[in-house]
């Protein structure tokens, strides 16, 4: 090649200047160009239908005892929040999924992702059974998280600190039921996100998320009680999915509070959990039979 050093440097600097000039243009970059109008609620409904129409296997359920006090150090002696889902009542209508989306600002996914089954929904139907993170008392995801972003609150919630997450996805790999969702897209930039609820932050690209058991509702109530002074048992709080369920099949409550609706209902029923989670002391269980 007949190119000496001088010429090589000349071409390189021309190239650099050219690309820098390209960067100065007023037109938006590719990423911004994809910015669309805010999505409508209809699009979210359509996505829920699409996710539910995907074939899925029914989870293998095994009997579990009623969740009790957490064994981790520093755990609350008064509260351990959880849910029980009545499979005799549930008809798999999927209203809980939409309610959850609206409560927690869960974004849409692109067409490409949807085809791969990478929906962001915190609740999904597994063979007609609603499944969300079970908030295991001895959670495998938290053990694997390198930065401590996945952590347990004293009240038995498996919480996520989005700002601390570095997106190693180790938690997702370690969850036997794959309850965790990864933000593959910058949903706000791509116009996939709609902020239904001001109280819940929209997650940024590259972090993990999952069911928070409507942490913001619990926190709000806790602070209310804390301000007034008194023992907080989380009475009167309900999750969005439980509120939305037309059959009242999802019951939220405090496993350690004998007056909680959850304990009252679950006491008379047989409790089940997905077989591969049963060993991790899940807080969210299924009810069948009994009465």
């Amino acid at each position, binding site marked *: 090649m007949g190119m000496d050093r001088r010429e090589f440097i000349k071409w390189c600097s021309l190239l650099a200047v050219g690309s820098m000039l390209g960067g100065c243009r007023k037109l938006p970059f590719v990423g911004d160009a994809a910015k669309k109008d805010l999505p409508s609620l209809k699009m979210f409904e359509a996505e829920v239908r699409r996710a539910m129409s995907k074939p899925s296997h029914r989870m293998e359920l095994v009997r579990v005892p009623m969740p009790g006090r957490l064994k*981790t*150090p*520093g755990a609350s002696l008064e509260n351990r929040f959880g849910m029980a889902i009545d499979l005799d009542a549930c008809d798999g209508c999927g209203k809980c999924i939409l309610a959850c989306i609206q409560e927690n600002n869960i974004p849409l996914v692109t067409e490409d*992702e949807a085809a*791969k*089954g*990478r*929906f962001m929904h915190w609740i999904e139907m597994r063979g007609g059974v609603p499944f969300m993170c079970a908030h295991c008392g001895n959670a*495998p995801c*938290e*053990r*694997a*998280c*390198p*930065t*401590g972003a996945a952590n347990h609150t004293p009240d038995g919630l498996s919480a996520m*600190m989005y*700002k*601390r*997450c*570095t*997106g*190693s*996805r*180790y938690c*997702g*790999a*370690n*969850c*036997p039921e*794959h309850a*965790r*969702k*990864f*933000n*593959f*897209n910058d949903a706000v930039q791509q116009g996939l996100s709609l902020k239904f609820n*001001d*109280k819940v*932050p929209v997650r*940024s*690209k*590259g*972090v*993990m998320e999952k069911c928070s058991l409507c942490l913001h509702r619990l926190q*709000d109530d806790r*602070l209310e009680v*804390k*301000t*007034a*002074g008194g023992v907080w048992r989380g009475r009167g709080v309900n999750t969005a999915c439980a509120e939305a369920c037309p059959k009242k099949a999802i019951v939220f409550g405090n496993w350690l509070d004998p007056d909680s609706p959850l304990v009252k209902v679950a006491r008379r029923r047989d409790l089940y959990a997905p077989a*591969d989670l049963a060993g991790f002391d899940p807080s969210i269980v299924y009810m069948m039979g009994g009465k």
Partner: protein
Amino acid sequence: MVRILFIVFLCLLAPGLVSMGYSLWQGPAAWSVDSGVFWGMPISLFVFWIGLAHAGTLISAIFLVLDVKMERRTSILAELATLCALVVAVIFPLMHLGVIQNFYMVAPYMESRGSMANVCSPLVWDFCCILAYGLLSVVYLVVHVLADKSAVAASIHRPLAWLLFPMVLWVHTIVSLDFAATFVPAWRGAFFPIYFIVGAVFSGLAMVNIMLCAEGYRMRQLEKLMLVGSWFLGAFLLWDFALKGNLSVTVLVFAVLLPQLMFVSAVRESTLGRVLISSSIIVGLLLERVFLVFPSGVMGFGWVDLGLICFGFGLFGVIFLVARLKLSRVIEGEEVLMGEVEETVPKRPATGRFSYFAPLTTPEFRMLRFPLLLGIIACTLFLVWVVGCLEENGIAFSDANLVPLTCPIITTVAGIVLCLRPLVMHIGKVGGAVMVALAALLGVLAGMVYGGVTSVPSGAVVSSTGDMLDVGTLPDSTSTLDSVAIIRTKAVFEARCAGCHGADGRLNEKFVREYYPVPQNLDVSRMDALGEDSLVNVILNGRTNMNPYAGRISPQMARGLVRYMRLLAETPAVDNAATQNEGGDE
């Protein structure tokens, strides 16, 4: 020959760079992962390259320690390859992250910088081990290169090899624990560490054999060892099959069956044959790692994945060739030039190392005693500190979780001390004192970076009773807030605002610094400039990093909070030392 290879590697690197750039821009969505398989190609490639990175140290350090005679040019070549492979290997876990700029949170700073890494996570172990291994590999190569010229370097060569010996095995054990410590059925198995080490050494040997072919000579020993490696791998594959019932035939063919062709002398004697067999081993082991990371089958294997593979090979080739050419003087040294001899015979005379030493009296051990002691002390101090942090924060852990961190810390400290000691002795007493002083200064600086200079907890939050600001001593302000309202507002402020803004209104730095940008510093003049109405509006509707509180706090309460914050701003700052003591008591 070199020029052709260089062009080949550049051709690999160019598309590799494109797909690497695309992956960085697009994030993990770029390569094939889905909601079930969260790890993808980068992790396969990480395990693969870190495996290759073991060959050099194995061949050089372990053979040196075990008195296996080996030519210098072979071992230095292998060490160089180790470093290059390590550079490639560390890129992959970094680019695999969703939020790459947060990677430092994986370092076990504990609570000193506000980000508490989870020392029970294998990724944290991994981070420490690879850092230590990279550092020691560089030191080892430098010492090896210098060993010919200076007696000092030669004297620490073997002790350093003894340090690296367990480290090599440790690092790959930890890499295997990334998988074996999870709950994915396909990844579980107590044999994983040995399985990984065998795979790593095996692929590393294949790589070194390819290099020797390129250099134009061969080493029978390494070929035999490679063959033995294939039997071991075959045994592990069968074991895995017996245990879990999954067997990938391609891996078996490429990495176990094809290498048996080495028994055919026509294949063994031709350079092409050796290159092909070694390449087939590399391909087989790469496939093995891919199948391992995708237990439920590879989905949507795309051009980005292929590009990443190209990137690995291309980058390795380019770095290695450049380093090899730049260092050719050093590598070849006074010995014969590469490629001139057909069969290698250990030429150095035996140095009487076979004489008997009573246990714990060997010269290596005498040299290593002191550095090892320092390493163990440093490690113990670190572990005590870690356990203290964990206990204080009520984090569940088992002592076994901390064991993986011991080896890298001990080895790093011991390795550095080992290399510094002759250096200090060499430059005499005054120079030594200066060096120690410099090292101490550096240590203090490093400690400040590590510990964080400004991480004074805003003690305010620590005192849960909140009696730092006595309501009675507040300036008379009945015009704005009566005393009952103050108590109510104070309760709301402490429940909802103090988490970030601090109970004294002067930011809870400890919390805020690592998670959010620091909130506005609201002193009196600033608050007056902004005006009450606009601050009420911020509380209710939120601003950049401030969450909206409309619906949770009434507008009247928001107004009260603004006035309360102004009161706080008017009161002089609380003595920090006093609050810290208060915090310590709890």
